[in-house]
């Protein structure tokens, strides 16, 4: 009898404690999905009694802010979002909690995620540490009105003898870039700022040329002839067919050139597709579309994949509450609601949902883009590699090094880092 009373009293006490407002603090970046989640939060707070604080910080500062929080034994964030390039680093340092047990216990279905997403921001070496949150694969943004214009069509046919349409191969795309650079308009606008904009954008060029970053043994292969050709294409596009100053454009400057109607194309993150239709910032509403970056043949693509994943840090003060939040925010209903508000999908059930497609017809194009995309080499030293690659690419663009020299220098540093990480023999 006593035992029964004791256990029920303690159960009551625990429930009381749990019901008392617990707070989940999450550090997030200012991506559009953050706003959509913020809007849906009251549902979660009502259902579980747990308060959620989303602390929003500029991307550049996230890593700086996270590192001390993760190194310390007790941080203030219950859950965090992890950019794909930090995954290797966080894994090696042991900063994330494995989620497999929780997934199994609660029967959470991870098979709905696009496999490329799970590879990038889900599992690391067989253990699940993250749930994919947000996809930002890169694609080719292009002007549909310029392609449909009759005068352009005739001029193109006269000049090249082929039809003016969505480019099916990389070379066809480059030809269109040259064609559209006239009368004060540009064929392309690039984001040449160090280190991520230029490194990420150039990765598309590399894949489009049929190049790869590494071989199976983790040796750098991006300084191959395909890589050098890709860099030369990039330099030509930036200097000859784009606006002045693109060498230091970040996505903001470059997108503004595109959205003011000054350029035909812009290779960038897929979420900019939605910004094209935002009248408060775009002069080309309804005139832009996105497609996967074309490759060497119509079947191949050159898009670079990118994503964020949810994780629970080792230093989390309340991992259980954090897991409750993750389960909720990545549940099929909420994932669909986020997508309907305009969020970026990572799961097949959302991509194939009829309502989502009806509201945002570009959803299918975005799914194709994602399925055809390539991953950047992610290991412990990815951020450092991105820094090195960005620097070398920028030196090549400003003419201080030849394309081959720049890529060789970056490859040499990559090999050093890969050896340091124990991945290369």
């Amino acid at each position, binding site marked *: 009898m006593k035992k029964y009373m004791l256990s029920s009293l303690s159960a009551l006490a625990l429930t009381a404690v749990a019901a008392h407002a617990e707070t989940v603090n999450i550090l997030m970046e200012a991506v559009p999905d953050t706003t959509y989640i913020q809007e849906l939060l009251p549902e979660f707070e009502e259902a579980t009694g747990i308060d959620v604080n989303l602390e929003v910080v500029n991307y550049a500062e996230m890593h700086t802010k996270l590192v001390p929080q993760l190194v310390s034994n007790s941080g203030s964030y219950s859950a965090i979002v992890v950019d794909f390039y930090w995954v290797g680093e966080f894994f090696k340092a042991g900063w994330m909690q494995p989620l497999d047990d929780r997934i199994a216990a609660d029967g959470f279905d991870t098979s709905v995620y696009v496999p490329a997403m799970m590879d990038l921001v889900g599992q690391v070496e067989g253990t699940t540490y993250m749930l994919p949150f947000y996809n*930002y694969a890169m694609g080719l943004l292009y002007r549909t009105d310029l392609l449909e214009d009759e005068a352009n069509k005739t001029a193109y046919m006269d000049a090249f003898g082929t039809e003016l349409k969505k480019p099916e191969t990389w070379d066809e795309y480059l030809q269109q870039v040259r064609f559209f650079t006239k009368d004060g308009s540009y064929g392309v606008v690039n984001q040449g700022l160090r280190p991520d904009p230029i490194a990420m954008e150039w990765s598309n060029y590399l894949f489009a040329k049929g190049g790869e970053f590494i071989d199976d043994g983790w040796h750098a292969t991006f300084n191959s002839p395909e890589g050098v050709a890709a860099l030369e294409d990039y330099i030509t596009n930036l200097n000859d067919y784009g606006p002045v100053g693109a060498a230091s454009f970040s996505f903001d400057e470059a997108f503004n050139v595109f959205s003011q109607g000054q350029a035909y194309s812009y290779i960038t993150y897929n979420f900019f597709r939605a910004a094209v239709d935002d009248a408060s*910032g775009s*002069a080309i509403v309804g005139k832009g579309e996105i497609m996967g970056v074309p490759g060497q043949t119509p079947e191949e693509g050159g898009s670079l994949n990118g994503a964020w994943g949810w994780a629970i840090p080792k230093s989390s003060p309340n991992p259980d509450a954090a897991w409750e939040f993750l389960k909720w925010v990545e549940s099929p209903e909420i994932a669909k609601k986020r997508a309907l508000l305009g969020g970026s999908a990572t799961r097949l059930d959302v991509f194939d949902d009829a309502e989502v497609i009806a509201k945002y017809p570009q959803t299918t194009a975005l799914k194709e883009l994602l399925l055809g995309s390539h991953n950047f080499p992610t290991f412990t030293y990815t951020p450092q590699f991105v820094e090195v690659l960005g620097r070398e690419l920028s030196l090549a663009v400003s003419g201080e090094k030849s394309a081959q020299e720049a890529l060789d220098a970056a490859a040499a540093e990559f090999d050093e880092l890969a050896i340091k990480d124990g991945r290369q023999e």
Partner: protein
Amino acid sequence: MKLARLDGLVRHLILAGFSASIALPLLWVLRVSLTDKLTAYRLPPEIGQIGLHNFVEVLTQYDFTRWFGNSVFVAVLATAISLPAAAMMAYATARYRTGGWPLMMMVLSSQMIPPIVLVLPMFLVFTTLMPVPGIIAITIAHVAINLPFMAWIMISFFDEDTRSLEEAARCDGATRWQAFTRVTIPVAMPGIIAAGLLGFILSWNEFLYALILGNHSSQTLAVGLASLETHAGVNIAPLAAATLLALAPVLILLPFLQKYLIKGLSLGALK
């Protein structure tokens, strides 16, 4: 007579030219704050749709009032704590050579180190002292940042002229402390005000410690405004509005300090 008028004209031309070069970019920012991103980047520049919507957006959709309040709290408190301490330290060094130059060097050297290597140990210290470092941690860090600079600035204002005034006061029976507070400080006021102002500004603009040591509720303006640079680009129109909103109250308050500033500034009018 003519020369004096020419002199005055030249002076005002220089001052006006300088002020224009400072003010023109700010006027452009004002223009951007009244329109939207599309109009901000449209050339040739057109009037577009003017409205106060950005100001409203900043005040309602972002935690602007909290960021502003936090920044004011931290800057005022940090300056209020470090100014007296710095003034005393400066006076001791200037008048009594306390610690000599090694001490002053040591004090300043704490600021010669890039904060980036100090922020991690500081964070670890604060997390052991308090569960969630927040606004108090930031204020304490700012006190330590301001102090060395304020002390060094004030040293040069405690000079020979104040020494003779102090000696006169001491002859009249004042203690060292009384001489310091009743004679030296009023005379050195321009320097003290300048140091206080600069300390306030340093704290107001400080980013790294506010970022690392802060949390959700303690976000200062510097950190909060930076989040307007989103993954999808800069929200330039709201950012312009927020910049002006942050500037306005401080400029409105400054005339209240006018009494001291003008007194200090007009002491120079005799040259």
